[in-house]
Structure formats: structure tokens, C-alpha cells
């Protein structure tokens, strides 16, 4: 590994930008994610920043049990994030669909649709746990930097439709 690449890896690990995606969540995990960025928990000390555009982001944080209406958007957004990227599933909903299991309007769990790197369990997880999950994803991100970029094009709107 040359020096330049190692520097890039460190930079990736130290400044992961998040894109937050609500796939039908109850807002519980979403407010805990925002609370993790607030002064008490201060995720910004890890270089974490919430970003409005998926094209600027490194880590996609998905909350919610993945409703049918959200599937197409999740695939599109995942395709729009540049390589290397990591996905953090916040809460029990994206992992197992939680109490909403058996609902016919859900298309979850999340890993049926996009690859997930870190699961943060809890309903909702505490902000500390979310920060730990994001820090873990940042390490995965730095390792992934070393691998060659996948030749994967973002799905078109027609492809992404369920």
C-alpha cells in the first residue's frame, strides 16, 4: 500500500458523511440519529456529518421496515452513492421488520434489496450505539477503498421499480 492510498484511507475513516434515509420508520430512530449529532453525544468529533445529497455521502443510514413505496427510492439512492460506500441499518426494523412483521405493505427486511454492512439493533438504538455503528461502518469504508471499484451502474428508474 503506498503512502497516498494510506492517507486516503485515513481520511475516509475520519470523515464519513451520512445520508439518512427513512424507509417508513416511526421517527424513533430518526430522532435518535439526530440526537447522536447533537452536543451531548457529538458524533461530529468523528468527522460525521449529515449530508443532504446521496452523491456527497459515504455512508447510507437506513431506518424503518422498508415499505413497498420506499423500495424503488432505496435502490436509486444506493445506486447514487459513489464507491466506496457502506450501509448502516439503524434499529430493529430494517433488520427484521420488528413488530410490523406480517404486514402486507412491507417489502423488508432491508438486506433483501441492498447489501447491509452494519446492523445497529434496538427499538430504537441509543445514540451511543448509533455512533458505534457509524464508526464501524467508517472502518469498513476505509478497507473498501483498497478494493477496485465495482463496475456497477446505478439502476435506472424503470429497473428500480418493484
Amino acid at each position: 500500500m503506498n503512502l497516498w492510498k494510506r492517507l486516503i484511507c485515513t481520511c475516509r475513516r475520519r470523515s464519513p458523511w451520512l445520508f439518512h434515509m427513512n424507509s417508513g420508520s416511526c421517527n424513533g430512530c430518526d430522532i435518535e440519529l439526530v440526537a447522536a449529532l447533537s452536543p451531548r453525544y457529538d458524533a461530529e468529533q468523528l468527522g460525521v456529518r449529515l449530508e443532504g445529497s446521496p452523491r456527497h455521502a459515504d455512508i447510507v443510514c437506513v431506518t424503518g421496515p422498508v415499505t413497498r413505496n420506499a423500495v424503488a427510492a432505496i435502490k436509486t439512492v444506493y445506486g447514487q452513492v459513489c464507491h466506496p460506500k457502506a450501509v448502516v441499518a439503524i434499529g430493529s426494523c430494517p433488520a427484521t421488520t420488528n413488530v410490523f412483521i406480517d404486514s402486507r405493505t412491507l417489502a423488508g427486511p432491508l438486506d433483501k434489496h441492498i447489501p447491509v454492512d452494519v446492523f445497529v439493533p434496538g427499538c430504537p438504538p441509543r445514540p451511543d450505539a448509533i455512533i458505534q455503528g457509524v464508526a464501524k461502518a467508517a472502518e469498513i469504508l476505509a478497507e473498501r477503498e483498497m478494493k477496485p471499484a465495482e463496475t456497477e451502474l446505478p439502476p435506472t428508474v424503470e429497473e428500480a421499480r418493484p
Partner: protein
Amino acid sequence: MSYKIPMGPYHPGLEEPYKLEMICEGETVQDAKLHIGFNFRGIERLAETRNYIQVIALMERVCGICSNIHTLTLCQAMEQLTGLEPPPRAKYIRVAMAELERLHSHVLWAGIASKLMGFKTMFMTCFALREKVMDVLQAISGNRVNYAMNRIGGVNRDIEDPQALVPMVDELEREMMRTIIPIFTTSATARSRCAGIGILTHEKAVSCGVVGPTARASGVAQDLRRAAPYAAYAEMEFETPVEQAGDVRARLFVRALEIMESCRILRQALSKMPPGEIDAGEAKLVFTSGTATSRVEAPRGEVMYSVSWKENSRNPSRVHVRTPTYANMPAIRWMVRGARLADTPLIQASIDPCYSCTDR
């Protein structure tokens, strides 16, 4: 020539997935259409397949911000069907939880509103203060979001030493008085972004049937805690703040004053809490056939549950929920008409929308 600007469903200005389609003439919004349904999890259908214990846990997850209100309303409706009456101490604990939830919800809203104003410092201040409310909630229930406090005929956990929580409430009130309220009421930034925008007139507020702080900011003095007291609200002394202006600033004022009133109710509930049992202690619940409705004043307005039950059944045959955002949503259209495009995120956030409640 007018053109259409879609906003959402995944947009940095929106906290939740929904879509706002605006028809604009230059910078001015002429009309807006709201599309919801991205959060539809089919909870009402799921509730019919859950028994009376499971349905409480399910309904708690309708909304992560007002989770206690949903279980409170559901439990009140189920108490009507079982004929159980919660003991006085349980009612006081319910009031304390409801007011703490209102506090954290209003402070959260203030944070999000200031973020949309572009006032990032205020956002951080609000969230730092909100953590103090969360501390009290955590001291009582052990949880930060889904408190699991209500059960049929009472509450699950006791507040062992209510007096010990009073200093925490005092500190909360002091912080509110010292930072949040002066900044929102006197700061030029807040005033220039909020005054005179998103006006909902009294007539329109009445004809749209808006509820909660949105209605009270347009001069409609309605508050279920006063009009139809539930839990122990009949024994509390408090004011209902009402503003006449109907703009975003009035909604901000109403919520700021409600924060102070919540502190007042909370102090009364904690200091007057009667001793005794915290639940009716019924081992076996017997439901009668019929439909029971229950209404509660949530932080955003009126929540109504209508629960139908068939005798000898473990599951409800229907749980219907009416959420405050459902009532407030149509008013957005009248608020954004004639507004500048840049103000629309703040205007639509000023009703404190919760689309995960509305879609369910």
C-alpha cells in the same frame, strides 16, 4: 407561465418521506399538493391480528415522537371496554409522562424549525436542552423513545420519588426562560424568517378543522386537556396560550408558551402525586362487545382512537386512529399560497407534521 416544483419524497428539507408538489409563478407559490403514503405500514390491519397485550406494543410504534400518547389513548379506550378505572396515582403518572413528552416534542420542533431557518446554533442549543428532558424521561421509564409506561388499568412503572424530579424540572424551566424563549421571541433572525409568513386566518382554521398548536395560533382556543379532561388533568391548573396572528411566529409563540405551561403542570403533577397503587390489579381482563373512543391532546393536537371489540375475543376487531397531522395537513395548502418558495420548508414544518402517525 407557471411551473411545477416537486419536493421530496427524499429531500434534505423534509424530515420524513412525503412529497410536496408546488405550482409556482416565478418565486411565488400559487398552489401546493401533498402526497403521502410512503410510511404506510398497515398498522391498523396488523392491530386486528394482535392480542390486547401485543397491540399496546404495536401502537407504541406508530410514532417515535409521541409514542406515549398513542398507548395512553389506546389504553383509555380499552379501559372503557373492560370497565377498569386506573387508580389516582397512575393518572398522575400518566399526566407527568404526557407533559414530559409534550416538552421534548416542542423542543425538538423548535430545533428543527431553527434548522430550517438556517439558524444552526439554535438547533444545537435546542437539542442540548432536549437531552435534559430525555434524562427525566429516562429516570422514570428507563427508555428514551418507547417508554412502555401504559397498560390497561394503570401504568407499568412507578415514579418512586416524585419530589426528586422537581429540581430537574426547575432547571429545565430556567434554561427555557434563559435561552430558548428570549432567542425565539427577540432575535432578529427568527423574526425576519417567521413573522408574516404562512398565515392561516381564523376563518380558514375553523373551516379546515385544524387542531392543537396550529389552531391555537390562529385564535381557536381549543384544548382537550381543558375541554374534555382525561387522566388527572381536571385537577391541574394551567392556561391555554392562544395567539391571533396565525403566522409561523404565532405558532412558535404558542409552542414556547406551552413549554412553560407544561413545566407548570409537571411540577403540580409531581408534587401533588397521591400515594397508592399504580394499576387496577386485574389479573384477567374481560372485554365487552362494543366500540369505545378516546381523545387525548397530543403535542400536535387531538388524537382519537376508536377501538371495537367482540366479546370473548383476544384481539380487537378494529382499531381506528385519527392523528392531528391528518387534520392539520389540508391547511398547508392555504398557508403556502402566495408564499416565497424558500419559505415553504419552514411553513410546512410549522404545523409540526408527523407523517408516520398519519400514514401508519
